[in-house]
């Protein structure tokens, strides 16, 4: 898929642990890990809203479109 999740970059910039973000957002650490690795099929707007709120960022800071990754 051409959509790449860059959540781990944002976590590093904000110096926040996945465990802490998962607890704040209200999802399991496992789901957050799957989200970071791009293995989830989608993300709810409510979850995206919560992540952006706690990381103080934009949705575009968390996901990117890389045309070269197209199958």
């Amino acid at each position, binding site marked *: 898929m051409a959509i790449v999740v860059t959540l781990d970059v944002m976590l590093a910039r904000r110096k926040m642990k996945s465990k802490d973000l998962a607890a704040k957002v209200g*999802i399991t650490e496992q*789901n*957050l890990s*799957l*989200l970071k690795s791009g293995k*989830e*099929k*989608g*993300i*709810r707007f409510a*979850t995206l809203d919560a992540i952006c709120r706690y990381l103080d960022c934009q949705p575009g800071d968390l996901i990117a479109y890389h045309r070269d990754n197209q199958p």
Partner: protein
Amino acid sequence: MTNLRRVTRISRLMWILCTLATFAIPTMLAAMWMTFDLWAAGHPELAGIQPVQDPMPTPVLAAGFLISMLPGGIAMFAAWRLRALFSLYAEGRIFTADNSRCLKHFAMAVMAIAVVKPVATALLSVVLTLANPPGERMMMLRFGSPELTILFIGGVFLIIAWVMEEGRTMAEDQAQIV
């Protein structure tokens, strides 16, 4: 009360009833055959069958019990699979592969009863009239609206099982959205 809580609560009761049914089926059939002489005359299941032996010898009664356990055994399996399904519902597991598998097995068992019951009736008629004088022995073949109804109901449950399988796929997709 939420819908899911209602499902889990009532499913616990249904689990108990299905468990009782599983063991009640062979028990009731055995009791029926042990008291054959009390109820046989005029019973609709034996309509048209006229055995001459009275009282019915024990080997014939035993054979009758075993023959009625042909559809009876399948009914026990159906009740057992339904029990497994309600066990899953009681745990709040609604759209899993196990659910659709249990329902499919139940549906196929119900349909099998509709097919096996006429065979059992035919065998029963032979066994019960074997001691009759020549010309009065019979083999009865019966397939009517009760069997068609059972077949139809089994078919309905089979389709519901396929629909549940679709629901499982959607639930799995939904679970992968964070």
